[in-house]
């Protein structure tokens, strides 16, 4: 086993700004999307997550079809978090407050989200068991969490991709973020989060700030335009990879981030890391929920990544 993809699982219903959306609940959540971004390239990966007992109702067929390793999936309560994502015109989204009050109290939902959050020990259980190359997690910047995690990382020697969580992107969070970055090898943040964190207005200003962070690579996601792969003073802008259809962008950030973690841990250069992130994202956007069949698209993904890389190199 080479890769651990940890974090929360969600079951999503999506509604776009024009009123259209998914007509059924889809697999989602940061860890599942990020896992798909790794699984696209390799089967030597596993999900590490805490879930509700209804997880298998939504995920079993997909797990079975794709031979997903189940060892790291722990059932800890009745229900996965079911989220109702409402997209705004600018492409950002929020939970539907009406659905929360109708179907569940928002505070209960968020408490469950916390109850199912990944602990450092959850990761350590498997990073100590297998010779893990890389780990992905969307996480906050809690000092205690990172202190425990850094001990596990030192012990087990894997590379770590931190996808920052939105609440940590307030300007007053910088000190705690820098503490977390001490244990981070590759970092992922989107443009809204970066603008908020650095109190700037443009991508260029964000890039200048991101270049100064003490990590090997940063994936700076700028929505449907694509992403920047930043490694020290090297900055590559990589437009979104072409997709044969565009259905649902939910999870593209997590998927590309997971993929970047894989590419980085395999030793690819920052250009290829960004390309593989975009290729995974292009697969994710083709349907509601996660990539349904990895075997069916893996060869294409490798080919597309190589072609894009060759083109950029020219």
């Amino acid at each position: 086993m080479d890769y651990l993809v940890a974090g929360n699982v969600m079951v999503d219903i999506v509604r776009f700004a024009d009123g259209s959306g998914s007509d059924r609940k889809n697999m989602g959540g940061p860890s599942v999307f990020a896992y798909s971004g790794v699984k696209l390239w390799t089967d030597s990966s596993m999900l590490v997550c805490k879930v509700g007992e209804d997880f298998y109702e939504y995920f079993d067929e997909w797990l079975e079809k794709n031979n997903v390793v189940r060892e790291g999936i722990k059932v800890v309560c009745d229900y996965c978090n079911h989220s109702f994502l409402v997209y705004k015109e600018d492409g950002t989204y929020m939970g539907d407050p009406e659905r929360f009050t109708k179907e569940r109290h928002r505070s209960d939902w968020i408490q469950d989200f916390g109850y199912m959050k990944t602990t450092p020990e959850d990761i350590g259980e498997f990073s100590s068991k297998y010779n893990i190359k890389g780990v992905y997690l969307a996480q906050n910047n809690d000092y205690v969490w990172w202190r425990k995690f850094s001990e596990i990382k030192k012990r087990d020697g894997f590379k770590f991709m931190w996808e920052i969580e939105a609440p940590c992107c307030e300007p007053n969070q910088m000190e705690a973020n820098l503490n977390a970055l001490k244990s981070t090898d590759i970092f992922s943040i989107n443009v809204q989060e970066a603008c908020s964190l650095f109190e700037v207005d443009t991508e260029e200003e964000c890039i200048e700030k991101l270049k100064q962070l003490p990590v090997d690579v940063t994936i700076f996601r700028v929505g449907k335009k694509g992403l920047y792969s930043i490694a020290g003073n090297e900055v590559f802008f990589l437009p979104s990879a072409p997709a044969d259809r565009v259905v649902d962008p939910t999870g593209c950030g997590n998927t590309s981030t997971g993929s970047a973690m894989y590419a980085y841990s395999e030793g690819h250069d920052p250009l290829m890391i960004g390309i593989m992130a975009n290729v995974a994202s292009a697969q994710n956007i083709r349907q509601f929920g996660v990539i349904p069949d990895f075997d069916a698209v893996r060869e294409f993904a490798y080919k597309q990544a190589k072609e894009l890389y060759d083109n950029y190199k020219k």
Partner: protein
Amino acid sequence: MKYLACGNIMSDIVIDANGVPGPLHMGGPAFFALTALRLWTKDCKLVCKTGADYDETYGSWMDLHGLSRESIRVEADNCTVHVLKYRPDGLFDWESMYGYEALGYLITPPQQIDEACEDDTKGFYFANGLDTVIWRKIDEFKTRRGVKMMWEFGGKAPDGTPETSLKMMKNVIHIADMWSINSAEAEFLFGIPRDKDEDIINEIMKLPVEMTLYRVGKRGAYAVTPSTAVFCESIDITESVDPTGCGNSSTGAAMWAHLEGYDPEMVVSIANVTAGYNAAQLGPIPHITDEIMKDAFEIASQKALKLKEGK
């Protein structure tokens, strides 16, 4: 340790009915239950996940009372802080200062209680909801370890309806040995007005638990068993200052009393004496000396005797 107080600890800032905020106080269901256990026995400990800053707030109280910290797990930066806003009817609304996700992260999982149990553990207090997976895990370790559980009722079914909540409660209550519920919760759950004590008690008596502490607010509480219900009015030790945590502390004390083999009169007296001590100040009883423990037992014994005489 013989007795465990399990679950969240939460510091409180109480805003009174006039909107005036008070200072930060130690609190939370498990902590209030711990203070209650400590009023009657030194053989108790706290089982919780909390923030690194808990020591600043709780450390000296824990040390003053010689309490073990072996089952306290520091998992985050901040201990949960709740802002409690009291309404004129005596009930309160609350908000979590560090957010509900942080609160959820610090919820005590069954596995932690299991790990905290020792060979001599007789019982544990746990304020818990209706989640069936959590109950299944509790059932598993309870059966394996032979410990008893006081369930302080909390939460509703995911759909928020009384019907589903009642059904879910009935599906899991056999796993608990003792139960505690207040009149507002009972009104919601059974659909019976909260002033109809007899009707509510009738429903409680049908439940498969050894003893229920049915709390009726300022009026007092009942100790209910399948065959009897004993009412005890509230007991003021000194002037009542703050009712926060009285439900948790009386519940923790009732567990201790029941598992020590006391009869319902003594169980409910001990519960109400505990609530009286708890209400005498903001936050927990500041210093439980051996003398206070002795006094509390004496007051409870006299009250129980009167209850028996009044039968």
